């Protein structure tokens, strides 16, 4: 592979880890308030922490540590990634009201980005797998998920999904709700296996994106944006980027978009060839792909395009104020 060029040429870490750490900071800045308020100790999960409740310097210390980590993590992903993750965990453990699954996941990812080395990259697979497994297992043991009650309420009373109201009225009672509930459970348990063992990882990522995207559309952006974004970050880490360059053959009608892809190919992982043929194809590890599949492969293997997609998505949803913290 060509010598890697980083936008900030300071660290010696793989660029995909650097990009994910950057996305995690963007998540903290856009979607959480933990960097705006001094953390408190309020009904902590670990009761002994209550002893520090009146020692304000402890809270200030954690806050300053978090701010320093956020500012310096792009220069030293390894150490400050771990500090940032532990700092977030401190905030949640010290104040149970701050607990959130997305924040916990971001903390785990930040710690792993700092901690994982080449021979322990399986840790990212385990982390993604555990998330889907926990979610799937909990749903599969919940009677309201199994009898469709959860989804009926979710779709009709909470998110007022028009297509659900239309189709469920035409089908036997709770039939559609049960179908959707079982689909979600099957997807989550299936994803936990696929990501753990990296089975058809490219297709697993595509299906996961479709799943989170459908949830996002069904709820008009109110649900799943955080997990769409955070899982997107994880997917950047799960892809096996080839050591040899990826060959991209494109025709002039794709020139504009390919110029953008080319411009942000900071690692020079791709060899771009403009051809007269109308076909668009991508060659990865000697295997060729055409048309839509080629484009999807290019998108997922192009870590900077993947990064830009998630960044634009986050900014869009923030701007639309669709986010519920």
């Amino acid at each position, binding site marked *: 592979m060509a010598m*890697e060029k980083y936008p900030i040429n300071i660290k*010696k*870490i*793989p660029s995909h880890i650097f990009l994910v750490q950057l996305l995690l900071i963007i998540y903290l800045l856009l979607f959480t308030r933990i960097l705006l308020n001094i953390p408190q100790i*309020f*009904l902590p*999960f670990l009761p002994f922490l*209550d002893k520090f409740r009146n020692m304000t310097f402890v809270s200030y210390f954690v806050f300053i540590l978090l701010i320093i980590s956020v500012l310096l993590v792009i220069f030293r992903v390894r150490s400050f990634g771990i500090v940032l993750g532990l700092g977030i965990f401190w905030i949640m453990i010290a*104040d*149970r*009201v701050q*607990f959130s*699954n*997305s924040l*916990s*996941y971001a903390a*785990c990812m930040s*710690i792993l980005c700092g*901690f*994982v*080395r*080449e*021979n*322990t990259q399986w*840790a990212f697979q*385990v*982390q993604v797998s*555990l*998330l*889907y*497994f*926990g*979610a799937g*297992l*909990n*749903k599969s*043991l*919940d009677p*309201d*998920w199994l009898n469709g*009650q*959860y989804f*009926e*309420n*979710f779709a*009709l*009373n*909470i998110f007022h999904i028009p297509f659900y109201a239309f189709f469920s009225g035409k089908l036997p009672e709770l039939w559609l709700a049960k179908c959707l509930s079982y689909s979600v459970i099957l997807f989550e348990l299936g994803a936990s296996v696929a990501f753990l063992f990296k089975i058809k990882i490219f297709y697993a990522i595509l299906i996961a994106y479709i799943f989170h995207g459908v949830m996002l559309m069904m709820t008009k952006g109110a*649900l799943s944006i955080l*997990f769409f974004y955070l899982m997107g970050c994880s997917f950047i880490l799960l892809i096996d980027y080839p050591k040899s360059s990826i060959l991209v053959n494109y025709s002039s009608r794709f020139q504009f978009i390919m110029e953008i892809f080319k411009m942000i190919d900071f690692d020079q992982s791709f060899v771009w060839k403009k051809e007269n043929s109308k076909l668009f194809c991508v060659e990865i590890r000697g295997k060729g792909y055409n048309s839509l599949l080629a484009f999807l492969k290019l998108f997922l293997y192009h870590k900077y395009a993947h990064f830009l997609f998630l960044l634009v998505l986050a900014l869009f949803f923030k701007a639309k104020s669709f986010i519920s913290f």
Partner: protein
Amino acid sequence: MFCSDTFDVMIYRRIILVVFFALQVSGILHALFTPLRYFCWAPYDQISLYRIEVQINQKSLSPKDIQERYHIPAQGRENRSIHHIIALIQKYEQSYGKKDNAFVSLFYITNGKKEEKWQWKNTQ
């Protein structure tokens, strides 16, 4: 690129990762035996609409007072488990608010089913 570890560091790194994931697995397993859904990767698995009412010395607290007391809105939506709200109130009343002798009522509807009520009164 990645820096390579010495053999010892590699072993320690793996041990730390195993502990890191074992903690998460124990969170998932613990959730099988409790209605609480903390640290077990169960987002949005139960939706409850709730309303909290608090009386201290026969006097009702305003929604703002309730928010200040428990750090959560007096009325709202809990997307994980209603037992998080119950545990929060219970823990508050057993610790920081022990001397207030508060009488708390929590009204909630979980997953669109009928409304339920949970109450707490300090007997001190």
